[in-house]
């Protein structure tokens, strides 16, 4: 995994990720303000009211507003892919491409709506689920040109890295290993239900920044912890030699490490819990948030329309 491009190019600390997003926004805000200056100089006869309106409405969006809009469309990609019956991994790759695209481009430069189909079509190609652009465009009710328009820009913004390790395979792997480690102690019917629930939760997790802060297995274990803490703890104890030391003073379950040479289970548990917290920080923008932000972008890029 450390050799993978996902780890080398697409894992960040929260601070770094925030910095990246604000840098992108700052770059375009500066450009927008310069354009605004030129616009005002070239329109000397604007009335006070018009000037006041422009000052209020034609302002660049903030990094947070960008994030809301990107998340809004990323969520739509998942549901759109579902309607197109695309495989789970293809949809996940499309979300990954889409969100990464807006780590180096601003929604003020590229309307998310325009990039939406490009990431879906490119994800189909990248995940060997090839369909011709014409048939894709027809299903997506758009044009082939619109789908292909930003393909190069997308590939470049992805830093030419296309391989995605999504947590779905890791979930399948843990599903198998739990059967081995807890052999005979798990009810398979119940496990099947847990698996299905976790799969859905993984799709939601792809919309959070957990995918930039944690590895796919950590995300999977965090989701498993949320889904069934008892099962997860029993697995951790047996798998990573965690022993539950209930004698501790404050009564809080303390985990003592028995065999220090193995994975540092305490450390792993901390990571999983912090990952769990990030996954639970869902940003689910409402449609009218998206509409307002899109209007703001339009005005900031076209002050004359104000």
């Amino acid at each position: 995994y450390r050799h993978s491009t996902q780890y080398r190019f697409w894992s960040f600390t929260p601070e770094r990720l925030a910095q990246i997003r604000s840098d992108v926004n700052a770059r375009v805000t500066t450009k927008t303000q310069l354009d605004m200056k030129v616009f005002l100089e070239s329109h000397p006869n604007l009335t006070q009211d018009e000037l006041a309106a422009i000052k209020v409405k034609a302002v660049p969006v903030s990094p947070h507003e960008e994030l809301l809009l990107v998340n809004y469309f990323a969520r739509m990609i998942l549901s759109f892919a579902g309607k197109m019956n695309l495989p789970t991994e293809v949809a996940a790759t499309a979300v990954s491409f889409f969100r990464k695209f807006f780590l180096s481009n601003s929604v003020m430069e590229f309307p998310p709506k325009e990039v939406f189909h490009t990431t879906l079509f490119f994800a189909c190609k990248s995940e060997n689920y090839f369909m011709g652009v014409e048939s894709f465009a027809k299903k997506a009710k758009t044009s082939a040109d619109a789908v292909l328009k930003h393909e190069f820009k997308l590939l470049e913004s992805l830093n030419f890295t296309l391989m995605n390790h999504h947590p779905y395979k890791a979930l399948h792997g843990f599903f198998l290993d739990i059967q081995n480690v807890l052999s005979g102690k798990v009810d398979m019917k119940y496990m099947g239900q847990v698996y299905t629930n976790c799969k859905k939760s993984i799709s939601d997790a792809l919309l959070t920044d957990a995918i930039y802060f944690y590895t796919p297995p950590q995300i999977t274990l965090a989701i498993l912890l949320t889904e069934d803490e008892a099962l997860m703890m029993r697995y951790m104890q047996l798998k990573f030699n965690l022993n539950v030391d209930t004698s501790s003073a404050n009564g809080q379950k303390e985990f003592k490490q028995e065999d220090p040479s193995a994975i540092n289970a305490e450390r792993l548990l901390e990571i999983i819990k912090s990952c769990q917290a990030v996954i639970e920080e869902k940003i689910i923008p409402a449609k009218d948030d998206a509409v307002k932000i899109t209007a703001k972008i339009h005005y900031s890029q076209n002050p004359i329309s104000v």
Partner: protein
Amino acid sequence: EYSKEKKVGEGTYAVVYLGTKRSSNRRIAIKEIKTSGFKDGLDMSAIREVKYLQEMQHVNVIELVDVFMAQNNLNLVLEFLPADLEMVIKDTSILFTQADIKSWLLMTLRGVHHCHRNFILHRDLKPNNLLLSPDGQLKIADFGLARNMGSPQEFLTSNVVTRWYRAPELLFGARHYTGAVDMWSVGVIFAELMLRIPYLPGKDDIDQIDVTFRALGTPTDKDWPEISTFSAYNKIQIYPPPSREELRRRFIAATENALDLMSGMLLMNPHKRLDPIQCLTSEYFLELPEPTVPSELP
């Protein structure tokens, strides 16, 4: 950063130039991907090359040095590899020994092992995709047909691998194959290194099945369960598998371990065919002669 000095090749989807990486004065090859004229946008072969080469850093897999856009073309900067195994096999002025063969096979298997442990199928192994660097290292190249090992429910296309190196399951149209198809190709390449001529040169896809079974025997349901479910199976000629004696006659310079290894890679039933680890740990690589040190290879 990169100069394009000389055009050295042109394929359906790319033009290849020799050049130099200015900052290090390193010789490189630049694969310029044609982009106009592809109605479905960026070509699948280019996407595959970029996707899989970016994930692998191994001495026996060609290095993708850089990728960049220029004049709306996608450029892959690859390490400069002036020769390939096909050139060496064909050039009868070049004498090579069993130790040389062992060295090339070892490097090929290490490269294939690295691909497979990254769950990547190459799907076009053949002598002219095994390039040779100035220091003698053999490197697997051309990942334009590569793909991730299939997810269980996926249907893979059987129309892959250049015909002479195509595994029997692919000839029968299999859709759920594994890395065994790459191992078959390596087995045929091994035979070709020993014979210095193509081992299974079919004239077309139907003839390829006949040439393959005439040389190695027609498999039956006994040694390859369910093979008779392939629709093409009923129309083929039944040939007996060659005796050990016959194999010895064909590969006179091969040791018993060499014949075992080659036969293991050319087992008809993909279930039983040797995988890269079984090949790398076979007796053949433990017996003399030792593989030639790459820098001393012809």
